[in-house]
């Protein structure tokens, strides 16, 4: 479990994603109503029509399409961890729709991808990448990020939320 820096990797948050092979976000699915949740839900279900308290851990789709995107031109405040060594390099952020789960999940785009190359509807895939280095422990702290998956962006002339009923601000 090392990165290309040769250092050991440590997840920035425990239990939210897998590290090896084809990494995936770890969500849950309610045994009563089938609704997905990320991060994984325990106990109560968020569906008001459901009284189930059991949720099956489940990896989420590794591919999705961009719902929207932006970037962080200025270094965010703590608890964002400042890069070491400096300087701060702006990064893009995308909100990504997962078709099967019908949910949107936020994440950084991988380094080197600017907003110029992004479009609403563009396919992306999930990767695990360095969030920041922890020199004290000699580890790279890693997190999920989105990476362009190639292929043709879905049409943006119509609703790009077709896979997500109510995914738009204004509904159907």
């Amino acid at each position: 479990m090392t990165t290309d820096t040769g250092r050991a990797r440590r997840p920035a948050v425990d239990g939210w994603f897998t590290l090896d092979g084809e990494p995936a976000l770890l969500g849950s699915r309610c045994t009563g109503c089938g609704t997905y949740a990320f991060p994984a839900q325990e106990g109560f279900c968020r569906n008001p029509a459901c009284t189930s308290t059991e949720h099956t851990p489940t990896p989420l789709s590794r591919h999705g399409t961009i719902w929207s995107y932006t970037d962080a031109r200025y270094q965010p405040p703590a608890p964002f961890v400042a890069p070491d060594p400096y300087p701060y390099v702006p990064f893009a952020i995308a909100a990504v729709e997962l078709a099967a789960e019908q949910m949107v999940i936020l994440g950084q785009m991988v380094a080197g991808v600017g907003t110029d190359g992004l479009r609403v509807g563009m396919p992306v895939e999930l990767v695990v990448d360095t969030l920041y280095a922890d020199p004290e422990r000699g580890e790279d702290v890693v997190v999920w990020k989105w990476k362009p998956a190639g292929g043709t962006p879905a049409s943006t002339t119509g609703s790009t939320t077709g896979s997500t009923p109510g995914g738009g601000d204004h509904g159907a």
Partner: protein
Amino acid sequence: MARDTSRSVAVLGAGMHPWGKWGRNFVEYGVAAATEALRDAGIEWRDVQFVAGADTIRNGYPGFVAGATFAQALGWNGARISSSYAACASGAQAINSARAQILAGFCDVALVVGADTTPKGFFAPVGGERKSDPDWLRFHLIGATNPTYFGLFARRRMDLYGATPQDFAAVKVKNARHGLSNPNARYRAEVTVDDILASPVVADPLHLLEICATSDGGAALVLTSTEFARRHGVTGPMVTIDAVSTVTPTFPQTRIDMPDISTDSGVTAPPGASGGFKPAVIAAAYDEAGIGPDDLGLAEVYDLSTALELDWYEDLQLCKEGEAERLIRDGDTTIGGRIPVNPSGGLACFGEAIPAQAIAQVCEVVWQLQGRAAGRQVEGATVGITANQGLFGHGSSVIVSR
């Protein structure tokens, strides 16, 4: 739809402490605003029976018990108190708390107060390592600030509806012009589209001059029963609050919003079931007051960013989805246009003083309806609406009429 004023409360007085970066104790701003509202109402402090405070979470314990803090500062008078925290909607929750006490007959005279002192720069979560707090995690795992979300909504308008950076900048130009002579506004200077587009990008596509600052400020209202207002000798048209909407989203909330990293899953919802959160907040206000968008003379909306003001046009049903750019291009939402939006200058001219802001929006609508908005007066308005959204499923809309 029949206009419903059976559950209206009277607005007897409104007051504000000017917005700025004064760096003094928030209590000072709240007391100044309250004193002005009481003077405006012609009500003595000792006659106030209920104090509703809107909380600030950045100023220690006195901020958590704002109702008591303001009551003590004004001099304990034995009034009943409440303190409300609801993120950016805290002020509206305080108004609603006072309204409920009046309508239930527990009191006749209530004072609503909100005030804040804010730190510089991006709003960051409160300290400590809190790995189960989504507000902490979004900063730590993603570096997602509030402008991140503003950028997402703005980019979506560009890709879906053909909005341009010039459209967004036009919102700021309009609001800056509106607020020029507002004595309570922090920023009173004209800006051009070129100025805005030349300012640094903070969160693509939004520039520094398109994102609202954080401010110090205070706002207050004196609310009474309509019977009390008549006994008190209100002459001329009485200004009343006819609706206060503070509804939550409805599951599944599948639109990403501050401070969440993920949305609900839509798999259990019938297709097209959700109309979105902000439209629902507005619809509940229209429904409660028995009015619709055609009745409005003005609107004060939460322009946390320029692009978000355009979203509100659609949420308020001033136009169809995807048509908000046409309203700003045609000048419909400028003072003198079909439906002026943010005649106060909005957050663009004020910056955000969180617990005071939703109250300040109502103060502006009240002054507009009374014809007291010198230099920014909307002529002939009889109904105004406020619209506001904050973190964690909080939003509000207040309808005021005369």
